[in-house]
């Protein structure tokens, strides 16, 4: 195991996969000469050159479209979205094209493309740079969607994403880039999609989350432990495919569940998880499934209001209290 931070775990995985496979290339805005807005690609332009680290014009639809075509021809593009909010410009290429190509061609053509970048709130980036859109993508058959919470998960899931023959949306909460952790010394370390992780074991309530909200849940679990409530934290990791079984098994043990997500509370992917728990675990539940989500407003700039919008550990603790 080696100590690192989330950003560098991603970067190391990119380097290793590019060294392993010449078909892997990076493409995006300011990822090369400028070293990447969040420095995930720092140094890679110098290491691999402009053939494999491609700086683009600011044209998200054409970037993803070009990557789709390159993937159809057998390359393995890893697209960086400067923020996932900008991927909205490329929705046509992601949803109307990437997600449909294998199906529309009757299985003839594969699209091994990864679209990665920061999703969710950072620090006062306001309404157009702070959105959590993973639920939009996880709604769409044909895509795979992952949202790692730790450096090791980022390291293993990114490798799985690059080696996957399907389009993968890989969302990185910007608040995690500096998170410390350990990663295995294994250039083939992968984490399969559709496998959730028990981030903390407990017997009294299940907190279900992904990405940065896993850490919010872990903080809440600490507080709850002080009250004698042992919370189990399920890190979903992969939204599509979703490891429903691990979630249900935990709820069957604890009989209570709260789903926690940074996305707007209404209509988010967390609501899908809550619906599944209600539908499939009804007899095991001692209370209705709780939800904690982001406030249903565009993200405000000013710090006090921004903090109000993003769920924190107190919100989670309150939600657990409301179950009783």
């Amino acid at each position, binding site marked *: 195991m080696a100590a690192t931070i989330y950003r560098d775990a991603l970067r190391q995985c990119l380097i290793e996969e590019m060294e392993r496979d010449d078909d892997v*290339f990076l493409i995006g805005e300011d990822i090369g000469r400028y070293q990447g807005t969040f420095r995930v690609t720092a140094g890679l332009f110098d290491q691999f050159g402009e*053939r494999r680290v491609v700086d*683009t*014009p600011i*044209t998200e*639809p*054409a*970037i*993803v*479209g*070009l*990557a*789709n*075509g*390159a*993937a*159809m*021809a*057998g*390359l393995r*593009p890893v697209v960086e979205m400067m923020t996932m909010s900008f991927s909205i410009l490329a929705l*046509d*290429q992601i949803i*109307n*094209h990437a997600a449909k190509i*294998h*199906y*529309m*061609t*009757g*299985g*003839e*053509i*594969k699209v091994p493309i990864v679209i990665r970048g920061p999703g969710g709130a950072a620090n006062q980036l306001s309404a157009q740079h702070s959105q959590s859109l993973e639920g939009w993508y996880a709604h769409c*058959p*044909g895509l*795979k969607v992952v949202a790692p919470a730790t450096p090791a998960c980022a390291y293993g899931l990114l490798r799985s994403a690059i080696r*996957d*023959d*399907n389009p993968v949306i890989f969302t990185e909460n910007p608040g995690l880039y500096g998170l410390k952790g350990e990663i295995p010394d294994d250039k083939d370390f992968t984490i399969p999609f*559709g496998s959730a992780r028990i981030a903390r074991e407990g017997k009294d309530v299940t907190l279900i989350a992904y990405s940065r909200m896993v850490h919010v849940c872990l903080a809440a679990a600490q507080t709850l432990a002080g009250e004698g409530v042992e919370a189990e934290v399920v890190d979903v990791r992969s939204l599509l*495919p979703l490891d429903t079984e691990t979630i249900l098994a935990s709820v069957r043990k604890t009989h209570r569940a709260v789903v926690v997500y940074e996305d707007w509370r209404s209509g988010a992917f967390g609501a899908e998880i809550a619906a599944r728990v209600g539908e499939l675990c009804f007899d095991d539940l001692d209370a209705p499934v709780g939800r904690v989500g982001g406030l249903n407003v565009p993200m405000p700039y000013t710090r006090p209001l921004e903090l109000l919008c993003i769920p924190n550990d107190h919100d989670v603790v309150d939600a657990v209290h409301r179950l009783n």
Partner: protein
Amino acid sequence: MAKPAHKDLIASPAEVEQDYRDMLFLRHFEEKCNAAYRAGKVGGYLHVYIGMEPLAVGWLGCIKKGYDRVIAPYRIHGHALTLGSDPVKVMAEIMGRAAGLSHGKGGSMHLYDVEKGFYGGWGIVGGHTPIAAGLAFADKYRNEDRITLCYLGDGAANAGVFFETLNMVGLWDLPIIFLIENNLFAMGTRIEYHAADTELWKRGVPFGIHSERVDGMDVFQVKRDAQRIIDRVRRQQKPALVEVMTYRFAGHGAADNDQSLYRTPKEVEEARRRDPIALIEGFIREHNLMTQEKMEAIDAEIVERVEDIYHQADALPFPEPGEVYEHVYTDMLPEEGH
């Protein structure tokens, strides 16, 4: 636009006959598709290529078939057939059958045949243009001398992503030809009402892309222009944009049943004088390359062949229900059930 110059023609009588047969085959195939649609054998959207045959037969006759890459929007039966896709599989796809080119999951708009170099088959106007650039990007990345030929309509020439793509291919010198099939109509909107500058060939100029307007009705002239431009792109490994002037004799789709909304019978009558089939027949007569009897015999033979294709396709089964889940992913099934 260069004037047609038949005196420069070096086509052999055999080549003339082949072009005649190929275009006539597309014409009859499309007419059969229309009939099948009216008979309820074809659903959804159906866009036929009647009047535009030289753009497929002429241009695709000049590429390295099976090596170069071809991508087109949704009026594509002619491209697949000319590239050599099995016509029964093409018809079967249009009829939604399991043995169709896309297993019945694509339909008329979504035909693909990678072995023949055909990459579809796209329903979002302009959306395939950056994908085409990606195909060319891959070839440049691997240092292979393929070219990509990307067809698009005059309507797609206004799409924002097309301009973004032109910038990229100009910036990166990608070996691609954008071929604007200017049939004068974006669905039912005439070019004067959809383009600020109706000379669409100019769209490549600001991006440093070799751009020109050429004829699309006289298949011999089409081939001369096509070979010249294809050779140039392959040799220089730089993009080109061509606006090919054509005319859509059919409606936008099979459900477009009131063409008086956007054009007059007089206009169609005038365009008919340059119908590609009529032009090549006139050429054959003018040069005494075939007797009238032989031309009629060829026509009858092709009609019979298309009938046979149709009946073979119609005998094929629809997909089984379980196939609905296949090919969403390469390696897993989606969750099942409603």
